[in-house]
């Protein structure tokens, strides 16, 4: 197992390196931010001075080597816009995004599994059909639109929830979190639901399909014949067996929840990494873009690894090993 983990981590370094090369080159091809950053009253001399100050006067390969050399020392460069280390800027925003992503994931699990099982057990009931129709909506409505609709409905028309932003934060395990206060919760509710909607639909569909498959298995029939209560059959035998695909998907999707928080964060003015990356792309703040994507790639790799490990625990038939093609 440890060989498996080490090999995976080594592979991840190669992936991260290739990614940095692609992003660096890509942003270079788009252009440089000088013309947006500089005051229009600056003359040619000032413009050249600014280009030099950001190191953009050097040829691209030199800029990249400089970046790589520093990256190996753990320094991913300074933001062009804020003149602060890119990594630090992103990590300062990470708790807000993580908080949002975790609340959204919990919501989709807590609601998705019971709803999906219900729809699987009673597929022809009105409730079952409504759940499935609802999940189609959750899949297909664009999240920025739903977000704005939520704001219009709950903040502007009903006036029960704030329109955006993060609530007051308190320190929890050394991190600044906002979900511990009522005000913080009221702020996180709309963006979290907005972010959870797609995943909720996914979990509903997976649990429903899983339930319908499992319910006809011999061991369920055997359990019934043995006279176990329906409650025990569903909560233990069915639930446990549909969990494997759900866990896999939730795990893999956790990465994409963080990555897709970009839209939700922009709509709800949530001060997380997603809002930062959107603004950085807008202004071609290359160090931040590169660092953000490297972090995201690394995160995907770690999550994949964790899912594989968790999988082997949930399903003892699965053994971690190198699969050679």
């Amino acid at each position, binding site marked *: 197992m440890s060989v498996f983990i080490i090999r995976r981590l080594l592979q991840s370094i190669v992936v991260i390196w290739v990614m940095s090369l692609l992003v660096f080159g890509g942003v270079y091809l788009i252009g440089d*931010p000088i*013309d947006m950053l500089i*005051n229009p009253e600056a*003359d040619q001399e000032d413009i050249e*001075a*600014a280009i030099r100050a*950001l190191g953009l006067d050097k040829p691209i390969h030199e800029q990249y080597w400089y970046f790589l050399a520093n990256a190996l020392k753990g320094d991913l460069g300074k933001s062009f816009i804020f003149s602060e280390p890119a990594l630090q800027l992103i990590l300062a925003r990470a708790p807000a995004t993580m908080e949002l992503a975790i609340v959204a994931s919990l919501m989709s699990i807590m609601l998705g599994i019971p709803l999906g099982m219900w729809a699987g057990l009673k597929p022809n009931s009105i409730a079952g059909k409504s759940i499935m129709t609802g999940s189609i909506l959750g899949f297909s409505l664009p999240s920025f639109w739903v977000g*704005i609709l939520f704001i219009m409905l709950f903040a502007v028309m009903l*006036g029960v929830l704030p*329109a955006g932003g993060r609530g007051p934060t308190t320190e929890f395990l050394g991190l600044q979190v906002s979900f511990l206060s009522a005000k913080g919760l009221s702020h996180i509710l709309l963006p979290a639901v907005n972010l959870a909607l797609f995943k909720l639909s996914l979990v509903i569909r997976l649990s429903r399909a899983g339930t319908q498959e499992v319910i006809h298995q011999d061991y369920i029939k055997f359990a019934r014949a043995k006279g176990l209560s329906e409650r025990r059959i569903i909560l233990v035998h069915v639930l446990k067996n549909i969990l494997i695909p759900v866990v896999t998907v939730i795990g893999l999707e956790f990465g994409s929840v963080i990555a897709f928080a970009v839209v939700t964060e922009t709509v709800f003015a949530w001060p997380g990494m997603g809002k930062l990356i959107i603004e950085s792309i807008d202004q071609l703040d290359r160090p931040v873009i590169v660092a953000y994507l490297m972090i995201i790639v690394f995160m995907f790799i770690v999550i994949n690894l964790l899912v594989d490990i968790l999988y082997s625990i949930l399903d003892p038939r699965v053994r971690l090993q190198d699969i050679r093609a």
Partner: protein
Amino acid sequence: MKNIFTALVAGAALMAASGAVAQEIRIGIAQEPSSIDPHFHNLGPNNGFLSHIYERMVEQDSKQRLRPGLAVSWKPISETVWEFKLRKGVKWHDGSPFTADDVVFTAERAVNVPNSPSSFGTYLKGKTFTKIDDYTVHVSTPKPYPLMATEMSTIMIISKKNAQGAQTKDFNLGPAAIGTGPYKFVKWQKGDVIEFARNDDYWGGRPNWSKVILKPISSAPTRVAALLAGDVDMIDGVPTADIETLKGNPKVKLSQGISNRVIYLHLDQKRDNSPFVTDKNGNPMDKNPLKDVRVRKAISKLINRPAIVEKVMEGIAIPAGQLVSETFFGNTPNLKPEAFDPAAAKKLLGEAGWGDGFGLTIHGPNNRYINDAKIAEAIAQMLTRGGIVTKVVTMPKNVYFKRASRGGPENSPEFSFILVGWGSGTGEASSPLKSLLTTYDKSKGHGASNRGRHSNPKMDALVVQALATVDDAKRKTLLQKATEVGIGEDQGIIPLHYQVNTWATRPGLRYDARTDERTLAMDIKVVK
């Protein structure tokens, strides 16, 4: 006993008075500043929001006219030396007194900020600051320098005691962020909130608000919703599309004002085979019609400015005939917005030998100015109707601006016909004339944003002369004349309209709209 009683009554009255007005103001802002260091980044949002904390020797009022700030008076005492008399009795937020040392220190520090993406050196180079006594500073330049006071209205003064050796991050975290302004810096959580607190000892009188909270909300619909939901008391950058509906909403009050930003067109007047000027079928030509002033005038006449304002801008803009609007120094009364006149345009094109028309591509950004892409489309339709078959290409600003300024061979502008905007930060006409219309010349620093490479020696001479004339009345005449030559006679660029900015507040507040697009808590008034 009587004294105690009076004190009690006075105290109660004070409390009642302060309780009557809202103490805290929350503002939803479209663009967040990039730093609390006032010299790190010469950029609109920074220069605006940091005005709560720091002050300048010379300030600009809401119409960008100069007024005394930390200096009470200024005058040239010789050809090359200006004298600034500083305000006495001003205290920094930490209680220490403001003196000439702080001004001299600021001038040294502001040009040397590491990694600055846009330095204030633009306004400080060539100037030597000398302390004469605690409240007098002399600024000398190699040549006569009429724009001294104007340029001093851009430099925020910082405290020598608190900022000596300080880095940009020392400002962002707070210890060096000590100013003399009406509000003190409290905290900045990037992307989340910026907070200021009232400076009770402010020399200009007690500021209105006990607390100013700036919330960066970049998405326009969310910003509007935040105001409607009562999360914030005011927002800036109200989108034009929402203005009609907001007007009818009793929960919202709008404040509008003309800005210093003119939207205009550059035309390639340098290359003979300009890449985006073609014949009617899209084939390249070896002759560039845009070099002919008659063609440029014809294009201007084919553009129906009132229609653009009416249909594209939803009435929220003002047709323009020059670089700065009426209240600005250097505006000439002789230039009006060009009238829509297709017949005259046709005649001009015929005279120039282009009666059959030609092909053109207009390039523009699609996320920089209000409705920018739609304006480009409207112009293309108008020109096409007049015989100049025009294609439209718009792109995000992060791609557009580099290509428009330096995308071609040898860092020349890539496009032939572009839509751009110019905000006159100094509030007068010399800066746009110098940057946009004088002949591109790196050694003189002329024409840095002249993306059409217009060149007219007569106009260059007028601008150079104006920049050396200290007498305000004479300089004004020269700038007016330069504008009349550069735009009136020569049509070096084609002005379209001045942007109008819109702020929205909750009822009970009024914002004095500023031409420089700044959003300042000081300008928010409580109304009954």
